[in-house]
């Protein structure tokens, strides 16, 4: 495919940097993009508070938060209609990935799967151009919501 060089444009990067400087991470919270993803893992938790799987289940399903069902089927949420099929099914996802890997994928899947992936980064400011004003400088999920979603994903086991 043809788009690698275009994906992260300079203006987007500059906008991201400016915004990062402006947003001060709250105490005990890791700022977006401040800890690099290495070897497909993010070992450091983003908050001091442990992730809450019940809250994570809600953030996962909430269309204004994770909206994960847009792309992923998940039998645990079968009461919700219409699961997407763009991403892999998440049944048993905790058997296939470690917590550190899942955190890395949720935070910024492009650092795990490469720039071409369709999956948005939920805790990064390395995003597309012309971000809408109401979303500028914001990550899709908060640090705590990422930890909650990761804790929830870790409950999705087949074995």
């Amino acid at each position, binding site marked *: *495919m*043809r*788009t690698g060089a*275009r*994906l992260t*444009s300079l203006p987007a990067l500059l906008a991201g940097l400016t915004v990062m400087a402006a947003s001060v991470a709250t105490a005990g919270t890791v700022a977006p993009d401040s800890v690099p993803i290495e070897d497909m893992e993010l070992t450091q938790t983003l908050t001091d508070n442990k992730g809450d799987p019940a809250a994570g289940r809600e953030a996962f399903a909430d269309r204004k938060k994770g909206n994960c*069902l*847009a*792309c992923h*089927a998940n039998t645990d949420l079968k009461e919700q*209609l*219409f*699961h*997407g*099929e*763009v991403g892999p*099914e998440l049944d048993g996802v905790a058997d296939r990935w470690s917590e550190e890997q899942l955190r890395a994928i949720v935070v910024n899947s*492009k650092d795990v799967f490469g720039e*071409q992936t*369709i999956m*948005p*980064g939920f805790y990064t400011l390395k*995003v*597309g*151009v*012309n*971000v*809408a*004003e109401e*979303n500028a400088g*914001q990550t*899709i999920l908060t640090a705590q919501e990422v930890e909650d979603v990761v804790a929830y994903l870790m409950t999705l086991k087949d074995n």
Partner: protein
Amino acid sequence: MARSNRLSLAAGVALVLGAHSAAFAGGPSDDKLVIDGEMEIMTRVAPPEGHPLDEVISGWHYRTEETRDLEADSFQNPGMLYVERGEEIWNTVEGDAGKSCASCHEDGEEFLKGIGANYPKWNADAGKPFNIELQINQCREENMQAKPYKFDAADQKALTTFIKHQSIGMPVEVDLTEGDMKAWWDKGEELYYTRTGQLNLSCATCHEDYNGNYIRADHLSQGNVNGFPTYRLKQSAMVSLHNRFRGCIRDTRAAFPPAFSDDLMALEVYVTWRGSGLGVETPAVRQ
């Protein structure tokens, strides 16, 4: 609709193929679009040279059977009301010059045949490509001495729908040799592949890489524009192409360009070219 069957079928196909994207998992339907049982529309065609996909497929194939049937029956197609309204406008005098469209062009059905299939088109005086809406506004201002339509005014949509409908079934073909059309095509291509917004998606991410797959309840198509203006059941109204462009860009959580801006005109040139050879479907019916 048997969504669960579709899902498990999709999963099965993905497993067999081991494909990372499971392209065409939900897949376009194999149906044929024949309007009123007599006019077959070309909805699957070979791509023009340099096109990234193997086959160009109309969005009609990605819709439910009920939606497909609505478009195939011109009596039931709600968009046909806008065609009728557009014909009235064509014949209605407006503006200080005391003219209607028909005053110069006479019978719309006669004069307009094939015209809509070849837009957007280079406009030498304006030094940019014109779509139907811009052409209407130029005529209104210069020849009718009437006020130009505001973007998405009801009459703009109806008249555009009437004009495009006179080319129904004729193949979409954009002339890229005129003026600077190729440069606008290049710009459109660049925009098509540029990721926008907090969700970091380009047109290509969904419509090139994942067409045929479901995002939630939405079956992603190739994003071809041969049916615009399109009757959308979601809005219960005709939706113009630039309205849809803006909606898509907004959904990536990005600021969207104004209608008929250079960016969206470039995108219209490029995306129309991607649907080259498809029959005009206006008024198409979509979800």
